[in-house]
């Protein structure tokens, strides 16, 4: 396993370097003067000359590339001129929102999608199966932001005044933002230190923060707000997983060893869950891994619609404000995170299926 892990890690290095080169190239390809692209059309030639010098934009391209990679490895993703903050600081604020939303979405997709797929396979061609397949086909063809807007309209406008009303936007009711746990516990953290950054990051994970501080009213309010975004984000992945689990299960059920297990007199339940499901799950895990990238795309759109201040919402703001630095910084950070996430998925796969390691 160690050898396999090391090999996978080594293989990831060129990809990460490639990502650096691609984002660097994209940053340099911005048409026109990079100074005016960053500072705006009103920048004077003197200001521009200083800007070019300060940012090393007059250096030869290979030097710029090496400097760029060095900066990223030191955790410096640039400075947003519009927000007058570093991209890293913005990320500490925004990333937890997306991580929690993504986790809710993925959990929903797995917890509902996989059992529903198994059930559909076991009851093949029943009303439930046909209904599920129709819904799955429609669901994966639906623009996620459209579903989000329609659900928003239904639950916030049509259901107004009923117990089914759900707040249409925001992360919590204004004024109900939970106090960060380090303030509740009275911790003194040096401003700007790594520890303070980490504490701030963790406190922005509202689920974690509310549980650790025992702030149940805020937790309830938060979860209430997250229902619609999580359902929207989960929708496509949930249906894809259900469809895939169904076909994977059907493939396994027809195998001889399942018939043999049944013929041996094993209980149907035992055969389904111990023999069939375990084997059907292997390809499903790959699909779960593939959903991560889609979930991120979904998060950009979902956060935009629901007004959540996550990475996706930030990307939208940056697009509207033409904040190139933020877009570049986020792009490289997210892409590298995805390489790491996929690496973890691959390693898990190796743990579950011993054949992988040998290959």
């Amino acid at each position: 396993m160690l050898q396999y892990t090391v090999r996978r890690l080594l293989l990831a290095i060129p990809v990460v370097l490639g990502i650096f080169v691609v984002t660097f190239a994209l940053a340099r390809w911005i048409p026109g003067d990079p100074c005016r692209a960053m500072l705006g059309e009103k920048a004077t030639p003197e200001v521009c000359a200083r800007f070019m010098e300060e940012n090393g934009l007059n250096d030869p391209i290979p030097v710029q590339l090496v400097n760029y990679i060095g900066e990223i490895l030191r955790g410096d993703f640039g400075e947003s001129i519009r927000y007058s903050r570093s991209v890293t600081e913005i990320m500490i604020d925004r990333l937890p929102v997306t991580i929690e939303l993504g986790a809710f979405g993925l959990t929903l997709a797995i917890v509902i999608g996989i059992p529903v797929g198994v059930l559909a396979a076991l009851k093949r061609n029943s009303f439930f199966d046909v209904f599920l397949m129709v819904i799955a086909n429609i669901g994966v063809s639906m623009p996620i932001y459209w579903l989000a807007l329609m659900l928003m309209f239904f639950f916030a406008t049509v259901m107004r005044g009923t117990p089914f009303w759900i707040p249409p936007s925001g992360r919590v009711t204004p004024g109900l933002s939970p106090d960060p746990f380090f303030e509740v516990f009275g911790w003194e953290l040096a401003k700007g230190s790594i520890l303070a950054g980490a504490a701030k990051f963790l406190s922005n994970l509202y689920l974690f923060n509310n549980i650790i501080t025992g702030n149940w009213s805020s937790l309830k309010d938060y979860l209430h707000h997250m229902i619609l975004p999580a359902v929207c984000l989960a929708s496509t992945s949930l249906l894809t997983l259900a469809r895939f689990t169904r076909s994977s299960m059907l493939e396994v059920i027809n195998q001889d060893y399942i018939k043999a297990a049944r013929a041996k007199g094993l209980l149907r339940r035992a055969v389904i869950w111990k023999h069939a499901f375990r084997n059907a799950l292997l390809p499903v895990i790959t699909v779960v891994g593939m959903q991560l990238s889609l979930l991120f795309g979904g998060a950009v759109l979902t956060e935009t619609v629901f007004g959540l201040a996550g990475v996706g919402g930030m990307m939208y703001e940056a697009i509207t404000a033409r904040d190139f630095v933020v877009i570049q910084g986020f792009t490289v950070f997210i892409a590298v995170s995805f390489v790491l996430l996929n690496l973890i998925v691959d390693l898990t796969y190796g743990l579950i299926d011993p054949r992988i390691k040998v290959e």
Partner: protein
Amino acid sequence: MASKIKKTKIGEKSFQDYRQNSLWRLTLRRIFHQRNALFGMGLIGFMILIAVFAPVIAPYDPLQVLIGIEDVKKRSGPCIHLVDPETTSALGQQVCSSLKGLCCPADQPTHLMGIDGNVRDQFSRVLYGARISLLVGVVTVSLSLTVGTILGSLAGFLGGRWDNIIMRLLDVLMAFPSLLLMIAIVNVLGRGIINALLAISIVSIPGYARIVRASVLSVKTNEYVAASKALGGSSMHVLFSRILPNAIPPLIVRATLGIGGAILETAALSFLGLGAQPPTPEWGTMLGTERAQVFTAPHLVFFPGFAIMLTVLGFNLLGDGLRDAIDPRLNQAGND
């Protein structure tokens, strides 16, 4: 001599049999037995008809602002003269009270999908939207299919160092979440439908290249390829006439599903303000510009989104059907 003719006849007959059972005929026959695929084809056909005949069907110019031409308010709901508003029948009154759009006053002009935020006829705009979406879907897939096929076949055919370089480059492209890379590319190229189209094409290239490479690798070592080489066929001839035709079936499936995906992605970029710019009647742009009005004018959000869904559903159903028809083994396993 007689026996010779007889032999040829037997040969001809079996050759015809073979032709009748060619992959394409079998696939077509299977497709026509699949309800889902037929429904998908129907949807696509319907959308193509709408796109082609949009100027004939649309009651208004999609860009025409109706201020001063008609007495309509901005973002007013659909007005369909289906029930007489003065009706005395109980059913009619019930319909009128719940769905006001079905029996709007006789002096109001008909607007099937209402009026948008700039006082334009929403129905005409949705109809014209089909033109842009279908065109974008087909062009994007053609672009990425062409480049992907070239890169994939070169990687598989040349092998060795070239294979490594090409595939590692494509791996880097695949490492990005697709929407993120599209945003980053449009961010550089500048917003607009053409740049969005380019971004989506670039991001989809690796998918096609991988399929082609896999097919080339699996076929390359076959004896008929060696025979073709031994007969003096040039590398290009062997690649294009002997190897690549084997990659076509999976490519067709991928491309059909890809058109649906490209339509969804273009609409998403337009929704974010990166694709088609207003006043272009593009479905994603229409949704994006009116999304804040969903609580007061849901019709402006509902119809463009529904149109996207129908079109994408058509391509998805056809793509799934094609996959099952080309590879019936999957169907036996229950992928219906």
